[in-house]
Structure formats: C-alpha cells, structure tokens
C-alpha cells in the first residue's frame, strides 16, 4: 500500500539545480533509503518533504492526500545538522518538541521517561542539554523525533557520529517501528547500513533519481551474470578475455560481469588455474555498494565524456 509519494519534485538555487524532477514512493511499513554522495540533493529533497523549502514544482502526498501542515505533525524529523536548546533541560526539551507537534499531557511525559530509560538517560532527565555529551545529545534528539508517535520518520544521515552500541540501539528502535507499520525514510551515504536495513531505495545524483525501487528487485535484476569476487593475486589476464563483459574494481572487492550464464563456472576454473587465491566468489550477487558505484559512477563518466 502506498504511503508516502514524492512526485516530480524540483528545486533550484540560482543556477544550481539541486533537485531535478525527483519521484519515488515509500510503501507503508517499510524502510526506505535515499542514497547519494555528499551534495547529491538528499537534504534538499528531504527539506522539501518537510516543507522547509518550497519546491519549485512537484508535490508530496501521504496516503494519497497532498502534504500540508497536518502532515508535518505526523512526521518525526531528524535533520542532518542537529540542534537543541543548550539551556533547556532534557525532559523539558522533549516535552516542548512533542508540544509543537500537538502532543502533550501525562502520557507524553510517561513515554518520554520510558524512552529516556531505554536510551540510558533516565538520570539525566533534569540536566541541561549543554552538560550532555554529543552522543547523548544525539539520543535526546532522536527521542524527540519519536515522542509524538509519528506515522513517518524522516532521518537525515541518522548514523553519523554514533558509536556502534548506540547505532545498534537506534537500529532496533527503527525495526520495531517498522513492525508497527510506520514509514521510515533515511538518507545516508553509508551503503552497508542501507543494505542491511532498507526494503526500498532510491539513488540520487546531481539532483536526479538514478535508480528507484525495491532493493530485492534491483539486486535480482543487476546480479544476473554478475560475480562479486574477493581475491589475492593478479587478475589482469582477465582483461582481454572474450567471455568477460566488464570488470569493476571497488577496491576491496571486484564486480565481474560475464557474457553468458555458463561463463560463471569457466571463470572460477580460470581463476584457480591461474593461481589466484579466491576468498569469496559470489555468483549472481551484487552488493549495494557495487550498485551504487555502478549507477553513480557511470553518470560521472558520462559527464566527463560530454564535457
């Protein structure tokens, strides 16, 4: 079922086209990853979704209805650049942010205290924000996006600057929310997180959506005749081999595409025969990182050619 839909969104700043006709949709109860390099247009897209920037054109719908101020109160938003009132106390801060979303009263206070306990901050309830460590401030900010029980969570660069334990804590909370049918959209340039968590992805580059859909479908489509290889040794002999369609070197792994299905076994034999030490040989598999670099990289190559 369609939850959140972005249709033909565009935004320019002067001559710079920050977002160019972007469209994607996020089904209910799913986790969506908006992936892109720094400056690709992720934050601008998200800010338009939150009505912080007015789009030049296009619209956002939620449950088929055009998003307005009511939509904003159904969303929990964590901006990339976090900010809290330094002089306010922790609990006070949480209650204030819930109040401007229209939620207040004893239940909110109780929920706030529960979350603080969960994030190991119960004893800091009446501390001023400025006395908290950066990581703890992040946790407070994260709680403030959840406290009003939003339908949609929009998290810009959620995991930046978090230690593994807190990352895990937040990941669990997000998965829990997904179970409860909430929509979670997060932007990141860290592919390993996206790969583990996302049901759907969109890759954005230079303001354009390059790839969009369910991660499983995308992988299935791209992984045919594709081998993900980790190895030690020299594979330069493959370069002029007639059965290889193309080789992409991603540093710690190599993506190899063969021309026909039957070439996969031949390739493995060839590697062994040439004394290459094969650590990982994944047939019909492609990592999200491979897909990302493949998608974005092609475009960069194209641009260079055009220029």
């Amino acid at each position: 079922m369609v939850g959140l839909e972005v249709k033909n969104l565009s935004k320019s700043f002067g001559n710079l086209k920050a977002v160019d006709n972007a469209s994607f949709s996020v089904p209910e109860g799913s986790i969506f990853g908006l992936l892109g390099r720094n400056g690709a247009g992720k934050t601008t897209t998200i800010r338009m979704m939150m009505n912080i920037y007015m789009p030049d054109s296009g619209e956002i719908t939620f449950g088929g209805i055009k998003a307005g101020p009511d939509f904003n109160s159904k969303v929990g938003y964590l901006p990339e650049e976090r900010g809290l009132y330094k002089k306010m106390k922790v609990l006070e801060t949480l209650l204030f942010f819930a109040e401007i979303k229209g939620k207040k009263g004893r239940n909110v206070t109780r929920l706030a205290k529960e979350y603080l306990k969960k994030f190991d901050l119960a004893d800091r309830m009446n501390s001023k924000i400025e006395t908290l460590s950066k990581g703890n401030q992040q946790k407070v900010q994260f709680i403030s996006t959840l406290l009003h029980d939003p339908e949609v969570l929009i998290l810009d660069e959620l995991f930046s600057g978090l230690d593994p334990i807190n990352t895990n804590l937040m990941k669990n909370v997000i998965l829990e929310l997904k179970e409860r049918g909430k929509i979670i959209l997060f932007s990141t340039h860290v592919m390993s997180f996206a790969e583990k968590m996302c049901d759907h992805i969109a890759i954005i580059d230079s303001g354009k959506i390059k790839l969009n859909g369910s991660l499983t479908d995308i992988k299935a489509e791209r992984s045919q005749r594709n081998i993900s290889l980790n190895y030690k040794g020299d594979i330069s002999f493959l370069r002029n081999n007639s059965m290889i369609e193309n080789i992409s070197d991603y540093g710690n792994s190599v993506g190899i595409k063969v021309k026909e299905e039957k070439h996969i076994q031949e390739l493995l034999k060839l590697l062994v025969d040439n004394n290459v030490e094969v650590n990982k040989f994944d047939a019909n598999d492609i990592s999200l990182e491979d897909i990302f670099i493949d998608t974005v990289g092609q475009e960069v190559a194209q641009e260079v050619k055009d220029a």
Partner: protein
Amino acid sequence: MLNYRVIALIRRELREKLLSKAFILMTVLLPVLMFGIFGVQTFIMSFESEKSIIEIVATSEIIAENLESVIGESSFVKDSTIIPIISSMSKMEFDNYIKSKERDLLSEKITGIIFIPESALIDKRVKYYSKTPKNLRLLERIDNPINQVLIERYFQSKNIPTEELKYARLSVDISSFKVSEGEEIKEEGYGNLILAYLFSFLLYLSLIMMGSMVMQTVIQEKSNRIVEVLLSSVTSKELMIGKILGAAITGLLQMAIWLSPVILVASTSWFMLPENLAIDITFLQVAYLLVNFFLGLLIFVGLFATVGSIFEDPQDAQSGMWPVMLLIMIPFFISISMIENPSNPVAAIASMSPFAAVIVMPAKMAMIDVPLWQVLVSTLVNILTVMAIFPIAGKIYRVGIMMTGKKPSWIEVIKWLKYKY
C-alpha cells in the same frame, strides 16, 4: 493564527525570558536604582535640614528687632529646622565676637553667623561666616526675611504706606495652567513632565532590550541549527509570531512592573506628592500607553528578529542592527527635545509618522493635550506599520533563518524578497 504550535512557542519564550537573569535583574533593579537615586537625594537633604543654628548679628537694634518678628513667622523656624539667634552689636564688638565663636563654628555647634552692617541699608550687602559657607539651601531660605526687613526699614523713612511696601516685596510668581478641551483649566505642575521623561526613557530602554533579546535567540537558533527542527513542526510565520508575541508579553509585563509605582501614586492618595509634582494621568491614558507600547514592541521586535535572521554571528548582527537602532534613537531624541518645547513642529510630524509615532506620541500626550484625532491617527499609523513591515520582515526571516555560511550583503537580502521559499 494562535494555534497550539504558536502557543507552545510563546510558552517556551516566556519560560526562557521571564526566568532569565537579565530580565529579573533589569526588571527589579531599574526601579530600585531609580528610586534609590531619589532616595539618596532625599536622605542627604534630610541631613542638613536636621537643625541649623544661625546667629544673626545686626549693627542696628531696630533691624534686629524687626528680624526677630519676621523670622519668627517663617515656616523653617516654626518647624525648627533653623534656629535663629538674633542680637545686635557694633562692628567692633562683632569683630571680637566672631573670634570668640571661631571654635563653635569649626565644631559646627553653630552653623553660621550672618552679619548685617549698617551699610546694608544702602547696598543690601550682608556677610555670612561658616565652616561651609556655600550652603545654598540654607541661604536661600534666610535671605528672604532679611531682604524683607531691609526693604521695610529703608522705606520707613520715606513715608510709603505698608500696602505698597508689600507689593514691592513680592517677587514675580508664575503659575502654569494647562488648557485642555472639555475640562476645567487646571494648574499644571512638573509631575507630567517628569512622567514624560520617565516614560520615554523606559520605552526606549524596553524596546531595545526586548529587541536585542529576541535578536539573540534568533541568532542562537540559527547558529545552533535548532531552527531546522522547529521548521519541521511549525511554519516560519508561526515561529516568528511566537517569538514576537513572547517578547511582547514579556515587555508588557516588565513595563507594567515599572509603571505600577507611578500608577499607584497617580491613582491613589496613599502617597502625598507636593502639589507641583502632581501627576495628572487617567486610566484611559494608561491603557493607551500600554496598547501603544504593545504595537511598538510588535514593530521593533519584529525588525530585530529580522535582523537576527540575516546573521549567523552575533558580532555581525551588532553592526547590522544600526538601521533599527536609529529608528528608535531618533524618535527618542525628538521626545527629549520636546520637553523644552512640546509644540515643536518636528515632534508634531514625528508623533504621527511610522516608527517614530510609537515613541514620540506618548511623550507628547503627557505634556500637552493632544486632540483625539491625532492619537487615533498615530495608532492607525502604528497598526499600518505593523501590517506593512510584516510581509517583508517575514519573507526575509523565512529565507534568512535557513541561510548559513557567508554573511550576506544588503543587496542580497533585498534579492531574498524575490525568492520563492
């Protein structure tokens, strides 16, 4: 306009402002300081009026006798703040006498000795001997009866009736009357003049204080990146309204605290003010002052918030707020200048001009009877000013709060007005 989001924002602003040290300090300290200065003055004055023993020596016995009866009538003798000891002796005797009294004068057992020589009947010159001879208050009091006696004595030999002498003794006494429509002509004291000064000053102080307070929070929200979180919940218009109303309520409360002693003095008879300091202010005027002040807060706090939104660094903002400061300071100086001549034409125009009306009109009203239509025009001008600046200020604010990085130039800020945000 006043939805739950705006109310939440106002509540946060109030909680932050009303409990801030700066606010409490200013609100409590300012009246204490002002009344303190008055208090210290009265305290010091009360010292000298404790008891002064003044010896008056005249060479003429008749003058001494006359002085005795005239001074005896004076209020300062009746309430015994000054105790006169009057005697007569010749010049030679006095020269010895003053030497013998030197110790008493130095120990201030006697405050001073006045010597009236025979020649005083010709040139009215008398001598005053004291450890502190420049005691103006004391001399001011005592020179009147001496003058009176000398005049009487001088004209006695000239056969002039006492009636005419009385007239000659009188000094010119100007009583001021305030002419106002519909009311009886009333004698006017200095009370309202002081009130006009005081109110102009408080208005000026409060507008600047509230304005820069809001400017600081806008800059803080911008540089702390809180604004983006806020904007995901509230619109920029709601945010701005919440801030301005929060500050306006704070300012109004502060002004009410500052003015409450004045209102108390004016509206009750608990405090006895000397007649020439009587404050003539009606409830309607107080209500007008507060409405006017509220409109002023909306205008100027709005402008300060806008300036704050343009800058990210408080120091840049300090230099960027001078146009707004001028809009407050020039009318303030016009108000002050009006105290010399309340009907000066610059003030008349300023009292009905945008921005200036807020500050000039109340001062003008305290001093002269302003026709009702002018008060209404001034209020209308203020309301129109609010309505005119808010779309522009709101637009700059909208763009400004999300602009980070380079400090923008004024030309860029004007360009923002065309942005679609």
